[in-house]
């Protein structure tokens, strides 16, 4: 079975020593992210995130379906993360690795159940018609920090996405294609962002945004999902060794800082993109909506 080749003993030893000397391989301080890049495609709802050498593309798509019978007034929203061998030969098509399972679970908790998206706004006609939103997360390049990168990608893509406009009269709705009517941004309740802390020496050392090598030597990880208002949406701790509660508390503080920065970053990128698209003031009101 192809699986990630584990790193040599020398590397493991060296990295741990270095960390004890407060040195990270790429010279970053413990609590800083790698360089973050975010770009949008020509289409709505495609976010291309680069976190160091890690690269993730999230794509939002919408179609009209019938809502679940038990949730008549809600639209449908799904996140699909399927790894391809592109990111690493260790990924086999149709056979999820643990990393993949954890990733999808976290995103599920952080974004879907975290209620980032107002699913009721996706309902068209109660019980019969609603939008089914789908987020496809494509891992293009894998150098650690998949969770954080993917979360950023999805949240950014959701903010960037526009769904087709609809007009409802009575029992039948008409869906307007993009050329017919200006599409509409999604209504989001908040923007959760994941920050992953990798710990060594049972929490003595807490690393923000570990790269693949560091991930391979860490004892475990703590994933904290927050929005810029400091509301924790989700906390997950993997790895057996126990971590001091205060350290965790401290992590949340660090996380909040990061979340604020990242949210701001995404916002600015969105505005740039809006400007780029805003030709002839056609989408003036759109970008206005966009900004708030």
């Amino acid at each position, binding site marked *: 079975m192809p699986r990630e080749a584990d790193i040599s003993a020398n590397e493991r030893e060296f990295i741990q020593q270095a960390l004890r000397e407060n040195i990270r391989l790429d010279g970053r301080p413990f609590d800083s992210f790698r360089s973050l890049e975010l770009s949008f495609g020509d289409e709505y709802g495609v976010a291309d995130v680069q976190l160091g050498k890690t690269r993730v593309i999230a794509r939002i798509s919408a*179609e*009209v*379906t*019938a809502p679940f019978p038990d949730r008549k007034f809600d639209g449908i929203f799904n996140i699909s993360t399927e790894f391809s061998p592109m990111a690493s030969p260790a990924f086999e098509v149709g056979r999820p690795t643990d990393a993949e399972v954890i990733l999808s679970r976290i995103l599920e908790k952080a974004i879907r159940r975290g209620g980032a998206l107002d699913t009721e706004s996706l309902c068209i006609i109660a019980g019969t*018609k609603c939008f089914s939103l789908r987020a496809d997360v494509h891992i293009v390049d894998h150098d650690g920090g998949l969770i954080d990168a993917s979360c950023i990608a999805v949240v950014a893509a959701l903010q960037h996405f526009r769904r087709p406009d609809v007009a409802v009269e009575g029992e039948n709705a*008409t*869906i307007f*294609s993009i050329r017919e009517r200006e599409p509409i941004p999604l209504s989001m309740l908040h923007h959760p962002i994941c920050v992953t802390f990798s710990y060594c020496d049972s929490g003595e050392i807490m690393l923000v945004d570990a790269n693949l090598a560091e991930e391979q030597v860490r004892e475990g990880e703590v994933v904290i999902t927050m929005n810029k208002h400091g509301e924790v949406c989700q906390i997950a701790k993997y790895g057996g060794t126990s971590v001091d509660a205060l350290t965790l508390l401290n992590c949340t503080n660090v996380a909040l800082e990061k979340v604020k920065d990242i949210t701001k970053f995404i916002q600015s990128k969105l505005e740039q993109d809006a400007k780029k698209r805003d030709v002839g003031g056609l989408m003036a009101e759109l970008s206005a909506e966009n900004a708030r």
Partner: protein
Amino acid sequence: MVPSSHFNHIRDNTDLKLELKIPELNSQFARNSHNIPPYAQNKPPKPPNLALKISMAAKTTEAPSLSFPRDIFAALSPSPFLLAHLSPQTPSTPSIRPNGRAPSEFRKPTIHRGSLTHCSGSAVVRLGDTAVVCGVRGEILLAADIPNPPSAPPQPAATDASDADADDEDDSAELSQLSLLVPNIELATGSTPTHLPGSPPSTLAQSLTARLRALLLSTRLIRARDLRILHRAPPPPDAAATPDVPPTEEAKAYWTLYIDTLFISLDGNAFDAAWAAVVVALRDTRLPRAWWDDDVEAILCSDVPAEARALRLRGLPVAASFAVFAPGGGVGDSAFRDGQEERAWVLSDPDAFEEALCPEVVTVTVDCTGGERRVRRIEKSGGSTVGRELMKGVVQRAEERWKDWLEVFGVGNS
């Protein structure tokens, strides 16, 4: 300090290595260890004179020591075996395939329709040792259940539905968007030792299914109007029975055609057989008269056979497949020898044995109804032998083949 021992000068000469081809013997071993069937097939051996010819041929192509009985030879080194058959011993003798056919010879198809009780239309098609059963079953899709109906509601042509003007209407988009055609191919019926039930559809099965669907749509074989169940309130007794309908009518529901194709036996050229089966089954299909009933609030059908309608198919496309046998193996390695291009044979309607040896395959779908010869689809991949010139010949063969099928289909009633 840098221990110089850790460096070493570049070693061009060791860097430089001539590529040499793996000796045939070597590959012999590989084959030996790999695909001799542990249990000999009980296939009837050829008449002796032919067998003799093989062993002669064997001497020319194989190491002289080898003189096997026919079936072992075939199993041990299939490619030379096929080559031995095809390369004529004397210029006069034509080349003959192991299955006794000439390179351009197809297998004679046999078909039967309507053998399945629970289908609107069905067919059994046999192509040599390849046998297919296809059942078409119509089910009803209520327009109300379509979450996102196509933006432009289909307006049936107001005038009489003579095939002529109905032909122009490009309705295949409607079919595909509503996915009114649901073709599926099932190989996992024990049709071959490699396709046993319980396993999900193999790549081959999926690929065939995809081709089938694409061809159904691109040939626009089926008219969307045949599948619409129109309604005008209040429904006059003869609603929808007569094809001429004012545009005020709306499609209340659609017939969805489930086209399930099961392989009973597979000995090469799956697609031709499957496609033929589908076409025959569709030609055999009779959909009962259906209408929207306001009292029951549902679509009802009449069980009077006389009222049932056949599908008015557009034309009669026929698929013909070919495999290209290039002794070099057709694999990149041996391709592109400068000057002399390698010998190759285009084998019509290949069987399983030949398919295994021919990476390059061509499928041409033609329709010669009404005299004009039209190509409906060309599929060619896996090699570089068939270029423009050869393709012409291939298309011609396909057109010949079309006539064969026409006979089997039973001419005229199209």
